[in-house]
């Protein structure tokens, strides 16, 4: 199996040259590798997408898909996993989707340690709505809704994920296909909540490719304190002096929500539930 086996006949509507193409390629490659390694079957992959440019990816994979609502990727992933823990769930979210509309769900996804991989396409801008600031835009960012400069400070999703209990936290760059694919594979193999933030410059509304390209350096996983220190070393600001850590910040093991709740593939365990007599059920109220 190779990446092309995941193609669909749907015409791609991302801007020509969009960095999301690289993410699409990396995910397809990672999935093909996992299938070839026998780690899972193609039919088990299930993508959940939010709303935004990132989410169009739903149409471009031939895998099970749930194209949900803006910001609501984590609860849909939770529902899928609680209903069928055999599905390999990949969530796709943007910085606006995950951190503005869906902030509460983002935190709880990490806290639940849901066994799923959450890809955060971070371009620091709302692109599908033609360019407004998001919670990761740098201070003072000038965009269509903030022509006089953003009054907000950015939030750091890597710090947030670490503090909220995610058990695998990484950051990669969309244009570094090799490292992105490798980290995605690790994240998909990880048992528990895996967050992969992908720096994904928007070539139409916020092209920072030249700016970030020399500022990244690779890190190795460390303990939680070390991971937090690494994560805090860049807070999404845009000074020339910044250095951007990429790679896996943190990886640990903890029981998953699915294990704690004790779920199964309900529709396979009970193709139809046994008919209950009302007498049996109501007996306790006699």
């Amino acid at each position: 199996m190779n990446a092309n086996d995941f193609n669909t006949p749907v015409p791609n509507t991302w801007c020509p040259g969009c960095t999301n193409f690289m993410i699409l390629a990396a995910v397809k490659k990672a999935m093909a590798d996992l299938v070839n390694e026998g780690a899972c079957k193609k039919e088990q992959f299930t993508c959940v997408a939010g709303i935004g440019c990132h989410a169009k990816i739903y149409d471009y994979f031939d895998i099970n898909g749930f194209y949900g609502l803006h910001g609501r990727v984590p609860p849909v992933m939770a529902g899928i996993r609680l209903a069928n823990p055999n599905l390999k769930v990949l969530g796709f979210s943007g910085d606006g989707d995950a951190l503005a509309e869906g902030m509460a769900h983002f935190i709880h996804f990490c806290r639940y340690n849901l066994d799923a991989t959450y890809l955060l396409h971070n371009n620091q801008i709302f692109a599908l709505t033609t360019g407004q600031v998001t919670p990761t835009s740098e201070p003072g960012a000038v965009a269509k809704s903030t022509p006089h400069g953003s009054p907000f400070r950015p939030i750091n999703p890597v710090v947030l994920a670490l503090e909220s209990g995610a058990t695998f936290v990484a950051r990669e760059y969309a244009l570094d296909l090799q490292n992105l694919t490798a980290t995605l594979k690790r994240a998909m193999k990880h048992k528990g909540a895996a967050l992969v933030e992908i720096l994904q410059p928007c070539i139409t509304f916020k092209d920072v490719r030249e700016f970030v390209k020399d500022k990244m350096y690779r890190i190795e996983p460390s303990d939680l304190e070390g991971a937090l220190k690494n994560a805090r070393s860049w807070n999404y600001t845009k000074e020339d002096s910044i250095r951007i850590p990429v790679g896996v910040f943190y990886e640990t093991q903890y029981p998953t929500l699915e294990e704690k709740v004790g779920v199964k593939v309900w529709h396979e365990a009970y193709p139809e539930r046994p008919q209950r007599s009302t007498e049996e059920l109501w007996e306790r109220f006699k």
Partner: protein
Amino acid sequence: MEKVFLIAGDAGQGIAKSAEILAKSFTKRGYYVFNYRDYPSLIRGGLNFNMLKVSTDPVGSHEWKADYAVFLSQQAFDTHKDKTHFAITTSEVIGGDFQINTSEIVQKTGAPAIAGNTATLGALYKAIGHDTQPLMEALADFGKHADINRKVAWEGFQAYTGKTTPLPQKEGGKPGYFISGSCAIALGAIAAGMDLYFAYPMTPATPVLHVLAELEREFDYRTVQLENEIAVANAALGASFAGSNVMIGTSGGGLALMGEALSLQGISELPLVAYLSMRTGPATGVPTYTGQGDIKFALNIGHGEFARAVIVPGDAKEAHERTVEAFYLTRKFRVLSLLISDKHLSESNYTHDSLPEPRVNSERGLVKATDSHMSYKITEEGVSPMAAPGVNGTLRATSYEHDEYGYTIEDEPTILKMVNKRLKKARTFEQAVNKLEPVSVYGKGKHVILSWGSTKGAILDALARLDQASVKFVQLSYLAPFPKKQVEEALKGAKTITAVENSVTCALAGILKEHTGLEVDHTIVKYDGRPFTGGEIVNKIRRVIA
């Protein structure tokens, strides 16, 4: 014969439990009991009371005047003493017809202070001239504390030396089922084969969450409390997509948060049962009191146009039956099933002498996916066969308009095709609802009382006291799809139509007009957070038809 018992005390004193024990002791002797719970939104110290109407005939409402009362606190006595002809009090209370020295009894028996309540129940049994056998049986509910409570009850019985006002014995009655609307809904969900229940706590929907959580291991499903109602509704759709049979529950404020996800149900066509238990609104309103004011919201929730069932059972037994129907409809037609109750139906206890008889069986009804499975296949009836992901094929669910495979589309012909598919499905589903007895008629008169939901009990109790040759009750159990033909049939030849609703504006009058063009002659509304009693309906109807 019917008598009313009032049990009142401070929040945290165990009023609800004592009332339940007393009620169950009566149902064991074959009486019918309706138990109304009145409690404020606080945990300790406020005033709680329960009104139990005990009758030799079926009963579905309470009254505001009692024949017998037990007051467990001074505040309760001072507030409610005028509502009763007779009162037993505890050693903590100054006043009443007879005071039981509960503190002495708990000391003597070595029982915890809270068991003092049970002493008053023992005393009450002496006051009504009955032996304590049924009370002793009902005390089994206390489990490992049953025996100590029996001792305390016996001491209370012995200690009572006041007057006896006999409660007539029920002859030959069989023990009935004593059950709240919430418990009946939970059991209906279990009977329908639910796999997962998601909720965020909100009164008065929370008891369903509690009951389902308690029973989840016994019947092997799971109850999960998620971070908010938005997560609840979205997770439910995720689980439904993955093949599970899912229900969610909330009250008005929570339903508002679910609105976008319910709209997603409309286009994704993922089976979902959403339980709404209404309280007095708007906004936070009066959290622990009742009302039917959210009905138009429920009928219209979710942007865009899509079909839904709005199911409005009237008592506990029907709540069980209609819950099964809610699952049946959502699984068979992939429409949203909104199952609607209110504080009054959810938290009152009903006595039913027969078991629920669901008209249908709910089935999961999944097909096996093929490699070329179409999640939104266009079929004769508009219902696309549903499969679960994981074994074969690529399955899709989407919030965007889509083609038969579930890929995003924007072209006019495909939009029309898919909207028409869902429209066809809505018609098929409407016919199925018509077979579920969406309208019930009681009595034969030309003066019609038209209502829906939890008002059923009070109206039936009123009907028993009114001239049934002149008054009839038309009860709606579905408001969407609106059972137009059955309603028109039931209203044919009516001299007057009176709509009854626990709301300010009586939405039902407008709903009737919207669907049939018929106008009601009168409305009877109540909007103080309290439910109707049978007596109130009798008085108001007499004035209307005089």
